[in-house]
């Protein structure tokens, strides 16, 4: 009897090498995943560490003699009169009293420069809140200038030579005196959430950009949700398979991969130059983003419709529903969670999109908070881009803070999408 089975000859050295190679390969894979994780952590920490300070603002407590003669010479105590008064002089003389030794125009201007250029409005607001202060000497917290703010947040180190430091030695002396008196306080930066854009970092806020984003997204949603869903229904449920529908399909897939900036060029050429719609307006931005998001929504909706089993359709048709009734009464409601998930993800993508909006002029500097869809406006990502381009030190933290707000919106939207998927997803 002969044994024909071939014997496996194991070469131990070779096996060792192969196993080592296996381990190495596995390690490379893990390293790659970890690289991605690490980079994400790096990105988030870099933004958070740069931006969290923007939620606080340095204020200086100043004793201001609220002279009734200057503020309210007629003694009316009416809100309009109090609001119309000039508080700049009062604030400046209060600062001069605080530091009596300051002489000369240059020095005085430097002294006035430690408070923000809009600090007089802090005084006005304090008076309006409490008209009884008029005629007394009150301690009012006024906003510091962005350099002073940056100094107290540690962005301007003390040990740099004076010529390279934005806060000069003279100002340091004043600030140290104020600190010693406990006159430097940090408060939550409300203005960041209630102001529009500004050239001064300490006055700039994101409300204008958030409202602009809301208007733009509202237009986008109003356009691309109905059109996208109807297109998906048509292609998935009604369209005959022929060259024409093939063309539409190929087209949609390609549109999904067209660079977003090209949509901006389309908007510039067609919506602005040909149709004469207003520049910088959310309505145009919304239309451009809708065209860009449409493929995403169509593809997601088609997938959701495809996932509804044919038995549902057959049952509805079997009891005499028309094809249209079958789709709108039975298939569409079942596909809705999937469609909505896709829509939210598409909207999240539109919220973060910048490039096409640059093309249609949404980069203009707009300090006002937009009041309607055809007003000039900007959106959150464009605001981030604008601030990132600004040279002032104070804008770096504002930019990071705006990014945090943008990411927060995106996280919320994605969380809603995940919850929707988890709760309503049906496995057939």
């Amino acid at each position, binding site marked *: 009897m002969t044994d024909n089975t071939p014997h496996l000859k194991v070469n131990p050295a070779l096996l060792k090498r*192969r196993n080592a*190679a*296996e381990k190495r*390969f*596995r390690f490379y*894979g893990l390293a*790659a*995943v970890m*690289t*991605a994780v690490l980079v*994400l952590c*790096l990105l988030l920490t*870099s*933004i958070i560490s740069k931006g969290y300070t923007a939620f606080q603002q340095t204020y200086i407590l100043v004793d201001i003699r609220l002279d009734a003669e200057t503020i309210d010479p007629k003694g009316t105590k009416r809100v309009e009169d109090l609001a119309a008064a000039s508080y700049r002089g009062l604030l400046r003389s209060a600062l001069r009293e605080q530091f009596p030794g300051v002489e000369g125009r240059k020095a005085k201007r430097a002294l006035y420069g430690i408070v923000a250029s809009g600090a007089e409005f802090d005084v006005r607001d304090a008076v309006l809140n409490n008209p009884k202060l008029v005629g007394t000497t009150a301690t009012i917290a006024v906003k510091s200038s962005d350099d002073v703010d940056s100094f107290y947040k540690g962005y301007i180190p003390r040990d740099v030579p004076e010529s390279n430091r934005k806060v000069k030695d003279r100002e340091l002396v004043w600030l140290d005196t104020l600190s010693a008196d406990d006159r430097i306080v940090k408060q939550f930066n409300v203005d960041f959430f209630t102001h529009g854009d500004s050239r001064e970092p300490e006055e700039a806020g994101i409300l204008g950009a958030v409202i602009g984003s809301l208007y733009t997204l509202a237009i986008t949603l109003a356009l691309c949700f*109905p*059109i*996208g869903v*109807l*297109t998906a*229904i048509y292609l998935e449920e*009604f*369209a005959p398979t022929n060259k024409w529908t093939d063309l*539409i399909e*190929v087209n949609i*897939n*390609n549109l999904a*991969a*067209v*660079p*977003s*900036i*090209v949509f901006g*060029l*389309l908007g510039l*050429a*067609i919506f602005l130059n*040909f*149709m*004469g719609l207003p520049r910088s307006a959310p309505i145009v931005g919304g239309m451009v983003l809708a065209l860009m998001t*449409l493929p995403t929504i*169509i593809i997601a909706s088609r997938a959701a419709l495809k996932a509804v089993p044919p038995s549902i359709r057959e049952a509805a048709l079997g009891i005499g529903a028309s094809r*249209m009734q079958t789709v709108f009464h039975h298939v569409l409601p079942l596909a809705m969670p999937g469609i909505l998930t896709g829509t939210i993800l598409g909207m999240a*993508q539109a919220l*973060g999109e*910048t*490039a096409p909006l*640059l*093309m249609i002029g949404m980069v203009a500097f707009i300090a006002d908070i937009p009041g*309607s869809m055809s007003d000039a406006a900007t959106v959150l*990502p464009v605001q*981030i*881009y604008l601030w*990132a*381009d600004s040279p002032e030190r104070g804008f770096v933290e504002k*930019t*990071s803070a705006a*990014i945090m707000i*943008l990411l927060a919106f*995106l996280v919320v939207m*994605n969380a809603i999408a995940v919850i929707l998927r988890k709760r309503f997803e049906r496995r057939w």
Partner: protein
Amino acid sequence: MEQLALFFALLFLTVLGFILGKGRAVALSGHSDQPLHSRLPYYGLYTALWCGLPSLIIMAGWMIFEPQIAEMLVASQLRDSNASITPDQLSLYINDVVNLASGGILSREPDAALLSAADNYSLFRQISYFAMAVVAIAFSLLALFTSLKKINPALRARNQVEKVVSIIMMISSLIAILTTVGIVFSLIFETLRFFDKVPFFDFLFGTHWSPQTALRSDQVGGSGSFGAIPLFAGTMLITFICMVVAIPVGLLSAIYMSEYAGKKFRAFAKPVLEVLAGIPTVVYGFFAALTVAPFFRESGTLLGLSVSSESALAAGMVMGIMIIPFISSLSDDVMNSVPQSLRDASYAMGATKSETITKVIIPAALPGIVGAVLLAMSRAIGETMIVVMAAGLAANLTANPLEAVTTVTVQIVTLLVGDQEFDSAKTLAAFALGLLLFVVTLVMNVVALRVVRKYREKYD
């Protein structure tokens, strides 16, 4: 705002139409011996569609064409009074008239002629608005009454409604096609105008890019040269750096996730990659410009290298990070669709896991992976914000990743942001670059999608 009021009035009439139509059907079903053809709401929808759709279409058409007509009126008036005006002056004048009427910024002090033209213009706009409102509402009411009259048990309301709905659906699906047509035509049209001013071959093969054209004819310098080779080179350099980062990391993480990772690890790592994919590009741009680029510059100084603060390396690497999830999720899909039997066969021959992956799965999945890489590359080429924020503006023809280069998308943005005359060679150049970008990415996508589809069919 006025248009919005009209829109809501029409919407109100539509809802009214629904209620009345349905009410009429209910009344009919009460005392008619013939059963109704359709279910009750269809009669409501029937009247509502008649009330709303035609007048909304009228309104939309009116709003699109009316401003042009109003401007033509202003222009013809002006030509009557001043026959020698050039087209440029004419368009400037019309702009001023429109701005004066709507409270915008003027380019000149308003004189009597301008004021009266603006008055005429706003009067015309007002009359036209009222005419539009009257026509639309009258049409809507007329449609309401005739369609209510038409409702009877034999009316095939459902069929008619469904026909309208299916037409609306077809129109919606045409919008995707129209978008493509719009992109192609607007780009081609402007590009042809650009090639009127700058020869085609100078653009495509010129090696000098400085798009500053003279504002006045007597200005010295800045004649503008539009040789796009430095832009292509810059784009390719940054894309190359991006792919050097993204392909290995993306592919290896896809391999690890699909072949090695346990359920728990996947549950942790997959969302991380998805987050990476969901971060807006402007955030990556900020990260590149303020964190990565200074880091490279400083480490370069330590090593004695001079690294530009807008180096191609920083922009390319951050772009690579952005592309990682793209490659990994696409190739993850591709590798998952390699049939299990191939793996089993390889294991049965005694191959280790890594040998199976490198010698069986990757070769089998190669077409799909190539498709994924192509898709990712087209995305990298078209990516704008990262390079706008982190790459340079100067068109250097260099292959050194430590220097600043510029890309096609950066130039499109810089040429078009800000107010320029629309038909200068400078702005038109942006459209030529846009067309080029569109064509290149389109070809890559078509090829990639075809490759992926072919590959899927092989194993399905």
